């Protein structure tokens, strides 16, 4: 069977993503309009009056039909304009541009930490299944899955920041201005999110490695006299790498979601804090903008994963 060119594959995948983007943003928009609470009241301020609230609805176009409001937003997006915050007037693209690197840095750090710890744990557990090492690993992994990230975050702050004073307790620094400071600020939130990732990587990797190691061709390799380490590194890991990439892509998406809570604990002005503020104040352009960004990130991550998997394992139908 002839393989389709990667360009075509990417193109068709991106085309398929369009309805997803429209559907996701429309659903969030509808939810925001369905829940009670009215930004016009907030905009009218502490000295609000009924007349002023009506006037504000008109000024900001909040009195127009629901579908028209969504249509206007979508029309602006197509022209590359994410519009601006109703409350403060800041361009949503500016807010996102500033917040996204903070969130991305935490996720990248968390992912690296999760892989650096999770992969060795998974491998050593799989070498001697049901031995004491394996049991220890699965206990740590269970803890990692069970401990809530926000709780771990608070414990880390109390011990490492407040008592030992090793790392800052709150905030974020720009990566371009001071890379070392930026990483120092992102380290604790990264660890808090990584705990879950480590557990997930270790468990999944152990499972798939065991499956590979018990397969017939590995038995043949043993019979050929190959050493355990060569079997593991040359054949075993190569065969589970497709699974590993899938785990990573799921993890990235999960970690992005986890930042919503973690950013609040560490007062990090990232995408999570941004969408929470937008949702609480019913500032829908902000919420829409963040959802739009998140959907695109998730679609891209999945696309890249699929391409990587296909490159490693040609059997995967593109």
């Amino acid at each position, binding site marked *: 069977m002839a393989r389709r060119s990667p360009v075509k594959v990417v193109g068709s995948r991106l085309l398929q993503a369009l309805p997803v983007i429209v559907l996701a943003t429309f659903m969030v928009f509808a939810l925001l309009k369905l*829940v*009670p*609470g*009215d*930004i016009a*009241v*907030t*905009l*009218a*301020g*502490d*000295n*609000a*009056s*009924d007349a*002023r*609230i009506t*006037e504000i609805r008109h*000024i900001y176009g909040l009195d127009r039909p629901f579908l028209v409001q969504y249509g206007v937003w979508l029309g602006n997006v197509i022209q590359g304009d994410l519009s601006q*915050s109703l*409350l*403060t*007037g*800041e361009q949503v693209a500016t*807010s996102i541009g*500033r917040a996204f690197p903070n969130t991305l840095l935490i996720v990248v750090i968390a992912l690296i930490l999760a892989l650096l710890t999770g992969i060795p744990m998974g491998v050593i557990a799989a070498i001697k299944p049901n031995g004491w090492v394996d049991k220890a690993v699965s206990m740590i992994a269970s803890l990692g899955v069970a401990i809530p990230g926000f709780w771990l975050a608070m414990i880390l*702050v109390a011990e490492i*920041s*407040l008592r030992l*004073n090793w790392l*800052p*307790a*709150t*905030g974020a620094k720009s990566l371009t201005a001071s890379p070392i400071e930026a990483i120092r600020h992102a380290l604790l939130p990264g660890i808090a999110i990584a705990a879950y990732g480590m557990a997930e990587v270790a468990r999944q990797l152990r499972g798939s490695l065991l499956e590979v190691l018990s397969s017939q061709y590995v038995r043949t390799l043993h019979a050929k006299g190959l050493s355990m380490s060569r079997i593991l590194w040359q054949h075993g890991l190569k065969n589970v790498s497709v699974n590993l990439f899938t785990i990573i892509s799921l993890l990235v998406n999960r970690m992005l979601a986890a930042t919503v809570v973690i950013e*609040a*604990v*560490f*007062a990090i*002005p990232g995408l999570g*804090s*941004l969408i929470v*503020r937008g949702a*609480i*104040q*019913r500032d829908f352009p902000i919420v829409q903008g963040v959802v739009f960004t998140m959907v695109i990130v998730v679609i891209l991550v999945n696309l890249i994963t699929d391409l990587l998997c296909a490159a490693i394992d040609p059997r995967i139908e593109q």
Partner: protein
Amino acid sequence: MTEMTRREAIALTSAAIAGVTLSGRAWADIAPKRGGTLRISAPANPSSLDPATGGAGSDHAFLFTMYDTLIEWDFETLAPKPGLAGSWKFTDPNTLVLNIRSGVTFHDGTPLDADAVKFNLERNKSDQKSNIKADLASVASVEVTSPTQVTLKLSTPDTALPLILSDRAGMMVSPSALKAAEGGTVARKPVGAGAYAFVSWADGERIVVKRNEKYWKPNRPLPDGIEFSIIPELTTGARSVTAGQNDLIYQLPPRQKAIIERASSVKVVSGPTLYVLQIFLNWAKPPFDNPKVRQALNFAIDREAFVKAALAGLAEPAYMNLPKAHWAYDKSVAGLYPYDPDKARKLLAEAGFKDGLTLDLLGYPDQDSVQRQEILIEQLRKAGMTARFANAPIAEASAAFFASEKRGSGLLSAWTGRPDPSLTYSLMFTKDAYYNAGRAPVPPELEAAIKESRASEDIEQRRKAFATVQRLVMENAFVAPLAFQYELVAMNKKVQGYRPNLLGKPKYDDVWLES
């Protein structure tokens, strides 16, 4: 030396003496010092940095640094005192003359003269984007009567105006910046004449201001600038101060006091404010359409116990909408509702609720609010009332209660004070006021007394009018006030000269940093 600078000198000296006794260090080290950046943890992103278009009471903490007001107030009593207007006078009940200080300029160099004041007042009064039109409703016209004098012609006598001009309506914005601004607002590029000039604002993250080198008050401000980090999670904000990443945090909940005092690097300042926790009532519908039920509610609340249990004692029990320290406080009204659950039961029985009554109230879901609700539920239970709270975020609950939906018969919330008490009363206790949730009528003598409170400039007469207003509000029990929460500010020990104020919206006028 003018009156004001002498006051400030005294304040600074006493701060310096306090510093010496505390640290035992030499005078030379402790004298007010220029320089350094004050780093503040702020609880909320401002709604706008344009005083006319914003709306949240939390904005003032930023606005006051960049904008000076025509009139200022005394920190302890909120009595008006000169600001950008060096003096003012009602030449007759319908005419207010403001004499503007000469030589003051905005941060962009535009002179702050009578024309600039006229431009601002007219914009605040009639611009479509202005949220404070109602504040200046009594102003019929603004005339420039000399380069340093503005005369306000009023449609009705309004002696609340001087203090109204100490708030948003009196914050002067550079007219040239406004004329050049896109959309006619300086929401994102504020230009005022305050102690600090705007540098940058990143939404939900940081606001930076720097010293106004041409500020009109001598030797002010002392720090080079202020950096506000916006940290909505107050526990996190408090941690940033104990960890030394910020110097000061304001509007802390009382429960934080014990926690933060454990940190040796931090000191805590607190003082009374106008911020009052209260249950707003909808008296247009049952059961609160019956005055006896409203009175029963007020008798059923043990305010002393509430202050101890819910606010760690860091509050003043509230029996009306003004605290003891305020110039218009009336002592006789405070005795109207002593804690008396038996009286409450009796009133309920008279109102036809012999077997008790279920109250559907709204509230907020944060930890402090829920704790207050639990205490109230228990207190009301002893008086035969079963309170049920439905909780939702502030924007949602308050819109549901005050706007068209009219959900719930009461809302446990708070009222942030206004510089002039007449605003507090007219915004809550007049027929069509937004904070009169049922838009129900009030006794004509109450509306008359509120009007009367704005008719005379004489402080004794105003006090008398407010005594009548307070008595009528509380006799009708249109609200159930609970407690005036103290301002609670925690700061690094190197921060000197910070004083709380009665309004409860922080001003950093005399603050300086010890190195």
